[in-house]
């Protein structure tokens, strides 16, 4: 059996990659994808712990997370689409509607 540490390291690597991508990329779609990567890194960690703890709870929760994430993705993409229609851009620097 592959030790749990390997999975955890993979999870951390995925998370850090996602975070870096979020900060260096400029268009909303890519940033959105990097958020999904971070999310799935977290899912992976969840499942790993569930397996080593020998309990199905974590796996069940991950199923829920994936379901909710699918819905959230749909909403997020719809928002990005609307932003594009309004502003004719999806560059995150150009969007500062909420500036105080």
């Amino acid at each position: 059996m592959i030790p749990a540490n390997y999975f955890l390291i993979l999870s951390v690597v995925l998370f850090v990659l996602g975070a870096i991508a979020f900060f260096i990329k400029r268009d909303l779609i890519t940033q959105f994808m990097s958020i999904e990567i971070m999310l799935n890194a977290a899912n992976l960690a969840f499942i790993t712990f569930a397996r080593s703890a020998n309990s199905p709870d974590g796996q069940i929760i991950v199923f829920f997370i994936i379901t909710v994430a699918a819905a959230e993705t749909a909403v997020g993409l719809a928002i990005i689409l609307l932003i594009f229609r309004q502003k004719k851009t999806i560059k995150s620097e150009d969007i500062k509607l909420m500036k105080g």
Partner: protein
Amino acid sequence: MTEIFWLIPFIPAASTLILAVFGKKLPKKYVSFQACFAVFASFVISAISAVGLLQTAHGNYPLVKNLFSWIQAGSFQVNLSIMFDPLSAVMALVVSGVGFIIHVYSVGYMANDEGYTRYFTYLNLFTFSMLILVMASNLVLMFVGWEGVGLCSYLLIGFWFEKHSAANAGKKAFIVNRIGDTGFLLGILFIIVHIGSAEFTAINEAISGGAISVGLATLIAILLFVGATGKSAQIPLYVWLPDAMEGPTPVSALIHAATMVTAGVYMVCRMNLLYTLSETAAQVVALVGAITAVYAATMALTQNDIKRVLAYSTISQIGYMFIGCGVGAYAAGMFHLYTHAFFKSLLFLAAGSVMHALSGEINMKKMGGLRKYLPLTYPTFLIGTIAIAGVPFFSGFFSKDAILTRAFAQGQYSAFYYFIWGLGIMGAVLTAFYMFRLVFLTFHGEERLDPEVKKNIHESPKIMTIPLVILAFFSVGAGYIGLPVVLGEKLNFFGKFLEPVIKEVHKVHLSIQTEWMLIAIAAFVAFLGIFIAYVFYIRSPLIPRNLATRFPTIYKLMFNKYYVDEIYNAVFVNPTIKGSEIIYDNFDLKVIDGAVNGTATATGFAGKILSFFQSGLIKDYALIFLLGVIIFLAYLLF
């Protein structure tokens, strides 16, 4: 039939609700019909219940209907309960009876007014409040009615609120009454604290059981009387009543002559055990009443406004009622209240009829010789005048005589009461004088009418004159249910009727000769006053002017109403306004506004600083988020 007595106040209440909600959509004719009918229904039920009272044995007083428990706090309880006993019966009959006649008169008087429906709504609301006042079985509910009539008085004085003086008069009445009400409320609270109940039966039991000391009784009685001086326009709080004449004339007749202003007298009679217990308080009542009776009469001598003369005369007559209460003749005080309701509302309505005929003219100097133009108003006005002047065989004579006789009889205890009697006699001369001055200046002598006014002069329509005739009939006849005791105890039916409620203790009997002598004096002073008025204003009209020029100080003092309004303004009103202005400038503008504005400025400043972090860029937010997570992790791990 008597068990529906509790409906008496609620019929006008229902009518008020309907008029207030649907009034704008209802046709005028229906409005007047409903308003009059509601009051008439109350009158019929009052009459039936009063007859029922006469038939029941004396022990069954009073009829009480407990509608629901209103306030419940520990052992203290206030019920919304309606009571009907002889005292309430007299008041309810006067309020609904005279009220009905005045409602009918108003249909004609207010016919062309824009606020027709509003007027009748207020008038019905007033009838409801007044009936609650007189039929409440406890002081707290009575206070509700007391304030209700005050409110209606305010609304109706300021009925023509677009007129500045009317709006101000309404405010004045309300504020002056508020001062009196403070005393009244304190009195009620003292009673609740020391007796534990506000029910009249409980209070009476406690007083006759000796539960409160004389000192406490004096305090409570005087506090309650402060309320009465406000509502019933006695010294020192009478100043609002003359100004209240800004309202429509039927309102002056109903509220400011016949019913509301006599509420104080009713209250004192209702609490008669308290005033009997405390002789000091009773003497204060008698003294205030007597001084007011004379003082207000002197002010009426020089006024030229027909309604103001009547207003001062009302103040003066209520003074008589308080003399009656103060000397222990509560039944006589109530009797005067009852006869006064007829002849004073008659005088007001007739004055309204004169104004109607003269296109709203109220200055007597511009009248004169109206007798031939107003064939119905003149005789009815004259009857009212004769009744108030105290000419024998008219109602006012019997009631005034009953009060003064009792005051004289009390003189056996203390010379103080002779003094009260003397003031009463003086007031009677003045009353006869200024009332006949009013008649002579208005209806007799040379015409001083404006030619414009004279062109349109006309007698009032039937709907206004018939009420005058009915009231004139009662002004003559109402006195015969309370004939002087000297003619036989049985003939004093009014006093007998009230006996179960009013326990008159030390009743003094005068010899028959003395009683007849007092009656003769009362009749003599009435004729004396009339004779002087005749000499002054018919035979040699130069005398008043000569007197005025010979004693300019006295004349000016009276003409300007002893400058009391000016003194009150200087002592109370202006300092209050000045003080308020100072507080407004220093406290409101600087402290309160400063604090409010300061808070706003501080918040705005803090927001400006913090808004630096709110760039609107999601990357910045994500960075802060990340930093937060790192710090949190670092804290967890190390």
